[in-house]
């Protein structure tokens, strides 16, 4: 279907003939009619995926690369000695579709839009770490970016693959706008999808990374079963984020490959114990609650084995994740005795959760049963979709609440969510750990930084108020013959700049 039209389901499913160039069709969850081309305000995966196909990024995370990142429109980032100034060096010869060259003004403009207040966590991370207002250009190809406080891991924050560049002066995001990404947007219908054609001027083409597809079609399909159905009936070639059961049934089909996202791009499912609420102020109770979780069972039951056991710490697989920490065991007996020791046996607790991401309610359901097994009179309160975090103040007052962690580096996440008794810390107030994290991030010697960071995480593991039993991947699937999506998989969502149909 090189002409961009949708092939008849049967023909596409049956043929499986290699297609060179061709149009790849991929399905994502999408956000309905409120999807927007303004990716700074588009909260859904779809918005981000679309933007990444359309615009060029500063860089992507790449554990194998030298700085831990693979640069995009940047040639590199230099960090000043005192870790308080980052210098972004732009790649020469990057052109927008209107023919103009990329300059530092464009990068600055992109930063300014960001500073003006995106409310997406990924972007807030940048604005919390860098003083975007004081960023300035130094010539056409250099941008000077001061930090809020000294940090060593700034590259990881800037090059998460979601920091995209638009042309200076861009106010509205629309189909015809100039971009310098791998594809050009030709059609966009909110809630339904977007169509792209190859951008032949893409700077990556010269580097051999260029888009190999002639066209790309991204479709929004909200329901997991429907996405899988669209794949198996040949309406799309790639589907994102299937439910575990769907993925399992699909894996039996030879026409398709299951391509789950890999570590570190896993979502942590967790339960937060509120240390402001008795008896969670008692670390024995917290330990008991952590020991009570039958993680293996959750992985097997909820995810049919397609998940990883968690160790009560977020950001597993990121470079700054603690090394050499033993896995916490499943030990209901010890949990019971701990509870007894704390005088909390037979305690009553309500775990609040909601279907905010797949598997969340199911894991909570199993966890409640686990808690019952150690003598806690636990019950589950499932809120309708979208409600768990709706009233965030109320959420942070819950005694025991489900939560999930998107894949972001460990220490910067800690600083945003846990340091200084933030509301989302659920009563966790540990100046010592906060200090260790700051110190680690401010250390220019990577080995030392890792040691200090590890120290902080060990403390968090031992005394923390988070039970994080499972990391689940995004369960994606693709038709045989689709390749290269993984090569752009530097972020939690797939990219298509290197994908091809064979």
């Amino acid at each position, binding site marked *: 279907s090189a002409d961009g039209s949708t092939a008849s389901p049967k023909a596409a499913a049956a043929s499986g003939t290699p297609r060179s160039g061709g149009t790849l069709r991929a399905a994502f969850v999408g956000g309905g009619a*409120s999807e927007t081309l303004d990716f700074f305000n588009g909260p859904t995966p779809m918005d981000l995926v679309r933007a990444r196909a359309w615009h060029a990024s500063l860089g992507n995370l790449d554990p194998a690369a030298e700085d831990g990142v693979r640069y995009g429109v940047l040639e590199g980032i230099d960090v000043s000695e005192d870790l308080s100034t980052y210098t972004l060096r732009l790649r020469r010869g990057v052109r927008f579709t209107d023919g103009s060259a990329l300059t530092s003004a464009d990068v600055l403009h992109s930063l300014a839009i960001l500073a003006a207040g995106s409310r997406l966590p990924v972007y807030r991370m940048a604005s919390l770490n860098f003083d975007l207002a004081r960023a300035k250009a130094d010539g056409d190809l250099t941008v000077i970016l001061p930090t809020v406080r000294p940090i060593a891991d700034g590259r990881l924050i800037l090059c998460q693959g979601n920091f995209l560049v638009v042309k200076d002066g861009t106010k509205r995001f629309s189909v015809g706008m100039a971009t310098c990404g791998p594809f050009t947007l030709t*059609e966009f219908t909110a*809630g339904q999808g977007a169509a792209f054609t190859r951008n032949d001027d893409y700077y990556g083409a010269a580097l051999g990374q260029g888009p190999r597809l002639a066209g790309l079609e991204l479709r929004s*399909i909200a329901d997991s079963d429907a996405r899988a159905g669209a794949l198996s009936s040949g*309406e799309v070639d790639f589907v994102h984020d299937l439910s575990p059961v769907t993925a399992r049934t699909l894996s039996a089909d030879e026409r398709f490959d299951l391509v789950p996202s890999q570590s570190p791009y896993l979502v942590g499912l967790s339960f937060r114990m509120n240390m402001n609420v008795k008896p969670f102020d008692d670390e024995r109770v917290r330990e008991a609650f952590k020991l009570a979780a039958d993680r293996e069972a959750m992985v097997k039951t909820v995810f049919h084995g397609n998940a990883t056991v968690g160790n009560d710490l977020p950001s597993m697989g990121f470079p700054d994740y603690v090394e050499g920490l033993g896995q916490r065991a499943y030990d209901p007996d010890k949990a019971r005795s701990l509870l007894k020791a704390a005088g909390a046996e037979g305690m009553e607790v309500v775990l609040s959760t909601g279907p905010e991401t797949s598997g969340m309610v199911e894991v909570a359901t199993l966890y409640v049963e686990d808690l019952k097994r150690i003598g806690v009179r636990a019950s589950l309160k499932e809120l309708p979709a979208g409600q768990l975090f*709706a009233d965030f103040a109320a959420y942070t007052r819950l005694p025991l609440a489900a939560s999930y962690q998107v894949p972001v580096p460990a220490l910067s996440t800690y600083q945003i969510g846990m340091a200084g008794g933030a509301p989302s810390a659920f009563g966790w107030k540990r100046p010592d750990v906060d200090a260790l994290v700051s110190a680690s991030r401010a250390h220019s010697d990577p080995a030392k930084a890792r040691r200090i960071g590890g120290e902080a995480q060990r403390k968090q593991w031992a005394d923390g108020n988070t039970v994080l039993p499972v990391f689940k991947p995004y369960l994606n699937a693709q038709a045989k013959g689709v390749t290269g999506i993984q090569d752009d998989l530097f972020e939690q969502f797939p990219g298509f700049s290197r994908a091809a149909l064979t």
Partner: protein
Amino acid sequence: MSWAVFVGRRVVGAGVSLVLLSGVVFAATAVLPGDAVSAVAGIDASSVERARVRAALGLDRPVAERYARWALGAVRGDLGTGFVGRRPVVEVVGARLPNSLLLAGLTLALTVPLAVLLGLSAGLRAGGITDRLVSFAAQGAAGIPEFVSAALLIAVLSVWLELLPRVSLVPLGGTPLQAPAGLVLPVLTLTAVALATATRLIRVSVADVAASPYVETARLNGVRGPRLALRHVLPNAAGPAVQALTLITGVLVGGAVVVESVFDYPGIGRELQQAVAARDVPMVQGIATVLAAVMLLILLLGDICGRLLDPVGGDRR
């Protein structure tokens, strides 16, 4: 009461209802838990930022004032901007409502004649074999929840026979009509339920009329078949039937959310569901008000048809 007066009164009544309703909608969104501010400012925003957002959204004003502003805008065709994605509500409604109306329209186009046909053939000979077959089938079809019949239809027509696409992918930048294959399953699913409901209601009133002396007389004078059904029975049975169809239309326009989500059909119902889930208050208000207006229109038409078809009601008392 003359026709003009009748219709005029109804239209004014519908207008008043709409105004009241929009107020109710405005108030009802208060039931939604959580704060619009959280939705806009982000969940872990600082209190300063929250206050700023609150002011920016005008949420610090009294409710009455907010409603007045909103209503004024609504009169000018501006229903505000959604919190999520910041798209104008009118645009979203404009994009999605036609799709839902299309689905409802197609379903009705299929349902009405079929239901009338089946209802008549069953009701005219109440207790006969046709009646038993039709009634039983209607019971069965009405008894299957939409999400189950959708699953069954998918299993058979899409997975097994591979006749129809599993999801209703609308061509980008096009209308659902450009991919008619994608409309078949949603329409079939909706038709199954709507047809069953309508058939049963029509059958009941037809059976009632069929037992009346004038139908007996007509039969004895050799009126039979379609003429008996259409000329003699249907006009008298139409009043309740119109009510039934009104009811069904309403359900189809606003309540097709299950079908829309199963087939991923871009309709207004799902948009509403998502807006509620995301507490996108302006979106909820806008969509709900527009849906209410559509429903009022349907009821209005239903009333007019009902009066047209009611031979006696217009005159007495």
